[in-house]
């Protein structure tokens, strides 16, 4: 073990030596001088313009007055770039002042420099498929998780918010689901060059309210992000080798700008509410349903515990439980402060932010987030050494109930008693009412902190030849607890605080990465060559301690584990994950017309057994900028830009737990006879290895009418084979799954279209629109011996992975009044699997978004409409039998009453009829629970106004109103078409107003 550290240490030292080695052969000592100037556009000073010394990493950014300053030699050329403006290049020569007037550009494409991970490339010359959003789009959204910022804005990227509870997670699928395993399709996240673990440290045992472990991306503050790039095809992802199969999300944090020190203040406040509610029965309708149900079941005397109907509860009461339990207003507060400045050699940025939001639940709960970011970049005066350092720290505190109250909000009888009695105490109605509000006495608390440090050191050994090292460190700590005091239980049990308990999860993850690289750029006539070779050493240590403590002398001591009479360690883990790779890139660019890009990587991961540890990945990408060809330029004049690109290659996936190849026992946390016990952990398979993913992409990019309209279309085909899965096993093997490679191939194909239009562009009015559409298709194309495998009743060759084999619902029988289903095998019974033959797609047909930005003088308006065409599980999937003591949507009013009737719902039953219960059970396994879940959602709208005070006060001031999820149009039969869940809180509708001042 120690040896390995020594190796990497040696490597780092080696590079340090190389950096300090300064051979006279390679230096070109020209005198450096200071260049400064002002950058303006038609309207006046232009701030934020990038000024770069060509072929170096040195540069500056213009300040609020448009001023810049840097040092360079006479032979250097300065490159001025700004999004939406033409890039300008000026040779310095004898000048010491260079004032630049930037021209609005119709061809913005080639100015956009895209982060492709280990290298940067202009949008125009990219060979791969890379989608991107920038700070402008992120800042317009009142969100706390960067994934939320990406929703609906990127072609080929489908993001679903899992819960509206703060701190909750997202499901991200880049170009579809590649893995048969439900959880193996997570993309790779890279923050400032450092891999960011997407596996949560949280324990779903503790964070019950979120329905899943808490999202680790909460550790990144959206306000600090300069851009997010998503790498999709082989050309872009192959350099990430084994971890690129599901796409790569690159997050770049903001950098300082040189020039006059600028202080920026941002504050906003807002309110949030539930986006959508269900129409439920009122008391009268509900009780009528109940009476009819008992009559149908042949029960005349209402059973003792049916309190709603047997006279125990007041039958004239009515409460809207959705309003009572989920109808509160959540408040949002946001403050940000940043300071930036520096000179041409050194720039810095300091940011601090604070966010607070409350919840829609009753009670006083909130989520708080504190963030700090510090970045420094420095380039030495001789232009050869470049150093950057970024430290990003986020702490969050989440104080929530332990349940999201959705189930009681929808299921409580509308005549259930009041939540509180006249003394303000929880009302148990003499033990007949399972009062959901009692759950407020149980709390979920979490505290986490994330520190991300990254540094890049690059040194130009000689012209075009750079040595570079990325160094990264990240450390995440999480402590979360869930209490269960005895007061949440019905007092009839007579339980005292000896039945109070707490579960505490304390975990941390430390990870470091060292990535030495060599870059070489050269030009031979018309041919530009860029080469990169590098290596990665990554080490990740994760610790977890899950403890349970119970039997307290008083509930006041519940957070003091030492005062518990019972203590158990449920899990104590200490995992090591190591990762090692060599990678390279070779790019040929001939005359800026023909581009060939080769990338490759050899990877090793400690997650695999010794024989299957290493694998090779690679890709080839090519682009032809045919718009540059003479015959096009001369003959097709409306075409201002034209490119065909394509790529093919492989990337892999090692997203499987650590140590899967070992036969192991673990401490179960239980003890017996005072002996801590051991338990077998898993069935083991020493031979599993990499999952590989072959990606093919073809794309056409066009710019029309001086790039007023940009259109691009891409076709992709990803084939994922050697599927790394937890193969489900029957219970008789003792365990539910076995980790292994499955000889199955999943294909994701799809079309992605993007359309950008600059509709209006004059002095006062500017209107741009963007639209994107993704049409994905997922198919299981081969699966040898599927029929005899444990997947035989889950998948069908030729069908998507997202299908369910279900009974086919065929309506309510007019005679019996019960749900009926197609009897596929004709045996007279509805049984699985022989009758569960209806392959029902539960997934997306197409999705996309439409963005519009309009600015008029000092006003600007942006909005994003997100649309998704899909099918999903509707409320029936988790519904109670209509007629039992649970409220129902008004849809059940259309029901069978007497022979000859049809209806949406079968005859009501209070659960005492075996036939009705069985038919209901079959309905839950039928295609009736899957229906249209398409929606059109105004995901985001923002309106802002720049106060015209800059000239007089020297400050910029912006007022804005932002809204998220303002409205949703859908026919979905359930609460929310996005979460599609009846136990998770849907995303909230949030309206925020704020003020930003730059001094």
């Amino acid at each position: 073990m120690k040896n390995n550290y020594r190796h990497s240490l040696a490597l780092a030292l080696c590079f340090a030596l190389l950096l300090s080695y300064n051979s006279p052969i390679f230096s070109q000592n020209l005198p450096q001088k200071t260049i400064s100037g002002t950058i303006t556009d038609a309207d006046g000073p232009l701030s934020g313009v990038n000024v770069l010394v060509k072929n170096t990493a040195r540069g500056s950014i213009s300040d609020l007055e448009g001023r810049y300053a840097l040092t360079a030699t006479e032979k250097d050329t300065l490159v001025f770039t700004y999004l939406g403006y033409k890039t300008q290049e000026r040779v310095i020569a004898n000048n010491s002042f260079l004032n630049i007037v930037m021209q609005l550009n119709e061809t913005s494409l080639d100015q956009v420099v895209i982060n492709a991970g280990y290298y940067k490339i202009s949008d125009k010359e990219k060979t791969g498929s890379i989608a991107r959003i920038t700070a402008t789009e992120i800042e317009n959204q009142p969100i706390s998780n960067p994934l939320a910022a990406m929703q609906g804005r990127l072609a080929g990227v489908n993001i679903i918010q899992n819960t509206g509870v703060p701190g909750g997670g997202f499901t991200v699928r880049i170009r579809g689901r590649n893995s048969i395993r439900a959880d193996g399709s997570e993309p790779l996240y890279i923050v400032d060059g450092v891999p960011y673990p997407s596996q949560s440290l949280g324990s779903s045992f503790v964070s019950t309210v979120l329905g899943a472990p808490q999202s680790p991306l909460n550790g990144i503050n959206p306000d600090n992000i300069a851009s997010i790039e998503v790498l999709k095809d082989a050309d872009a992802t192959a350099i990430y080798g084994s971890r690129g199969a599901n796409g790569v999300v690159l997050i770049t944090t903001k950098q300082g700008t040189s020039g006059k020190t600028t202080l920026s203040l941002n504050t906003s406040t807002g309110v949030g509410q539930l986006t959508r509610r269900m129409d439920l029965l009122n008391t009268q309708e509900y009780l009528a349903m109940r009476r009819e149900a008992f009559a149908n079941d042949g029960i005349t005397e209402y059973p003792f515990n049916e309190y709603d109907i047997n006279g125990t509860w007041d039958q004239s009461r009515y409460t809207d439980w959705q309003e009572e339990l989920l109808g509160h207003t959540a408040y949002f507060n946001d403050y940000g402060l940043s300071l930036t400045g520096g000179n041409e050699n050194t720039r810095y940025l300091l940011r601090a932010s604070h966010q607070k939001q409350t919840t829609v639940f009753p009670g006083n709960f909130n989520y708080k987030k504190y963030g700090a970011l510090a970045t420094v970049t420095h380039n030495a005066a001789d232009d050869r050494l470049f150093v950057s350092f970024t430290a990003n720290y986020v702490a969050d505190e989440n104080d929530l109930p332990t349940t999201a109250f959705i189930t009681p909000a929808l299921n409580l009888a509308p005549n259930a008693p009041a939540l509180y009695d006249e003394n303000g105490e929880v009302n148990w109605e003499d033990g007949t009412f399972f009062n959901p509000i009692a759950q407020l006495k149980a709390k979920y608390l979490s505290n986490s902190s994330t520190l991300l440090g990254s540094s890049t050191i690059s040194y130009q050994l000689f012209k075009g030849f750079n040595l570079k090292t990325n160094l990264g460190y990240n450390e995440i700590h999480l402590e979360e607890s869930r209490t269960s005091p005895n007061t949440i239980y019905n007092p009839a049990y007579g339980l005292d605080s000896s039945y109070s308990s707490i579960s505490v999860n304390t975990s941390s993850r430390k990870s470091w990465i060292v990535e030495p690289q060599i870059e070489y750029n050269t030009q031979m006539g018309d041919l530009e060559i860029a080469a990169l070779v590098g290596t990665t050493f990554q080490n990740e240590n994760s610790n977890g301690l899950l403890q349970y403590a119970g039997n307290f002398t008083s509930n006041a001591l519940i957070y003091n584990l030492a005062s518990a009479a019972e203590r158990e360690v449920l899990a104590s883990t200490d995992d090591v994950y190591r990762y090692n790779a060599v990678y390279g890139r070779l790019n040929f660019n001939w005359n800026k017309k023909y581009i060939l890009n080769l990338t490759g990587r050899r990877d090793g991961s400690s997650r695999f057994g010794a024989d299957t540890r290493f694998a090779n990945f690679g890709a080839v990408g090519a682009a032809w900028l045919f718009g540059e060809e003479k015959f096009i330029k001369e003959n097709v004049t409306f075409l201002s830009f034209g490119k065909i690109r394509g790529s093919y290659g492989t990337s892999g996936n090692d997203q499987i737990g650590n140590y899967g190849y070992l036969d192991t026992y673990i401490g179960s946390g239980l003890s017996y006879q005072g002996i801590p016990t051991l338990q077998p952990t898993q069935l083991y398979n020493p031979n599993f290895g990499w999952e590989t993913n072959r990606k093919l992409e073809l794309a056409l990019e066009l710019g029309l009418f001086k790039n007023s309209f940009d259109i691009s279309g891409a076709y992709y085909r990803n084939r994922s084979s050697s599927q790394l899965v937890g193969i489900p096993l029957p219970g008789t093997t003792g365990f539910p799954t076995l980790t292994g490679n499955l000889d199955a191939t999943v294909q994701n194909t799809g079309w992605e279209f993007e359309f950008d239009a600059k509709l209006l562009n004059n002095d006062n009015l500017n209107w741009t629109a963007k639209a994107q559409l993704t049409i994905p298709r997922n198919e299981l194309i081969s699966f040898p011996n599927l029929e005899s495998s444990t997947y035989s009743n889950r998948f069908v060759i030729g069908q998507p992975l997202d299908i369910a084999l279900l009974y086919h619902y065929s309506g309510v029988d007019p005679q019996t009044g019960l749900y009926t289903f197609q009897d596929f095998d004709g045996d007279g019974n509805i049984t699985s699997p022989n009758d569960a033959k209806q392959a029902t797609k539960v997934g997306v047909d197409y999705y996309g978004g439409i963005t519009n930005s309009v600015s008029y003088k000092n006003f600007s308006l942006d909005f994003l409409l997100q649309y998704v065409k899909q099918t999903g599980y509707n409320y029936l999937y988790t519904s109670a039998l209509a007629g039992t003591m649970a409220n129902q949507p008004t849809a059940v009013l259309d029901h069978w009453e007497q022979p000859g009737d049809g209806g949406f719902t079968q005859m009501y039953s209070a659960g005492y009829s075996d036939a009705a219960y069985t038919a209901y059970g079959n309905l839950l396994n039928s295609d009736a629970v899957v229906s249209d879940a398409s929606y059109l959602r105004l995901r985001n709208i923002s309106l802002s106004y720049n106060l015209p005070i800059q000239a007089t006060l020297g400050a910029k001031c912006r007022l804005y109103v932002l809204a998220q999820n303002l409205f949703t149009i859908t026919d979905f039969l359930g609460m929310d078409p996005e979460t599609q869940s009846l136990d998770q809180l849907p995303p909230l509708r949030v309206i925020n107003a704020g003020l930003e001042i730059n001094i």
Partner: protein
Amino acid sequence: MKTITIKRYATVLLWGLFIFLSSSCEDFLEVDTPNYLLSGETIFTDTKTVEAAMVGIYAQLRNNVLLTGNPQGLSVLLGTYTDELDYYSPYPLPEEPFHKNTLLATNPTVAEVWNGCYNQIYAANAILEGVADSIYFTPDEIASFKGEALFIRALIHFYLVNIYGDIPYITTTNYHINKNVEREAKEIIYAKIISDLEEARQLLPATDLSGKKVRPYQAVATALLARVQLYAENWEQASQLATLVIDETPWESDPTNVFLKESPSILWQFQPEFEGQNTFEAQNFIFEAAPPPARALTTTLMDAFEPGDLRKDLWTGAVTDGSQTFYYPYKYQHRAGEPFNAEYSVVLRLAELYLVRAEANANLGNLSAAASDINKIRERAGLSPTTATAQETLLNAVLKERRVELFTEHGHRFFDLKRTANLDGTLISSKPNWNTTDRLFPIPEKELLLNPALNPQNPGY
């Protein structure tokens, strides 16, 4: 000249890098087994770790499925499924469909019981395979580990066959075999259970070494085997085996002490995890206010106690809300928050063996012997000797006595009604939804999908 130097320099550097890398990669990726996991090989080199794995099974049996006093155990599930417990919860509990007899093949609790049982069988088989022919242990150690593991394996399969009907009998940890297993006829399963228990009897220590009756020893295996032989209607063997246990176990004559952990007639019990925690049974059965928060004893069970039966006073508790009285099982009276554990969860106790022998003898025609064993139980309950004398009436007397003696102890009522073909006759009146096919639980649907060799599903599902 200059460019050549540069190129050479770059080439050397690149090669140097690759050579360095190729030498370091393999070492770097070699991670040790983490300190919180023990490899299977290591476990079976040390008595202590095998012991920890062995008691791991008892901890699981105590906390999860089948024999646990928690609501997912048979005491609650089969108690509500038959006529021992009524269901009162205003909030849906997993036992609700059991109470209403509306089990579906997709019921999660049914799957939990199935999977939990086979997981423990795996753990037992892993021990059997791990200690077999081991050079690390003495023959005595091997014998006792094997004996316990065989006993566990037989015990769990015994419950499975009585709940699910024909089942696979799992004797290996090899998943290549276990994933395609077929169901075997009840008779074959019984033969295997008997064979495992016979072997366990030979291997287990002759007396309780734990000092608290918390680990199986020979008499425990004998007692279970007596029950198995009774179920298999091998009356002779059942009677003989019961006698073996009765002869070596002292009788607790005070009904107030029967469930105290020191009671001499307890054969096998589960030790609670913590001192002062006491039993899950007490936590889940006792309530202090009416109406009952979850479950209460049925009036039919309460009516089954003869007047003057001490067990009604001592082993049930009552709560009145003014107009109505509700009863709960009060065999376990101590709850958490006490300084010591007064009670453990009893799995096997001597009273059952008297009733096993009584029933076997009644069937064999040894009527007076049968009556005398029944009276042993009645005497402790403060009741007069049985009036039954004929075979038929004696058998009924045994059944009645089992009902009031063994209520809410791991589903005796269900198994007794079932093996004496009284399920339908008894339950059709008190359980409106009762069907003949409810005598078996469904095989979990997911299991049939994953292993079609388990088909067909039990009738009625």
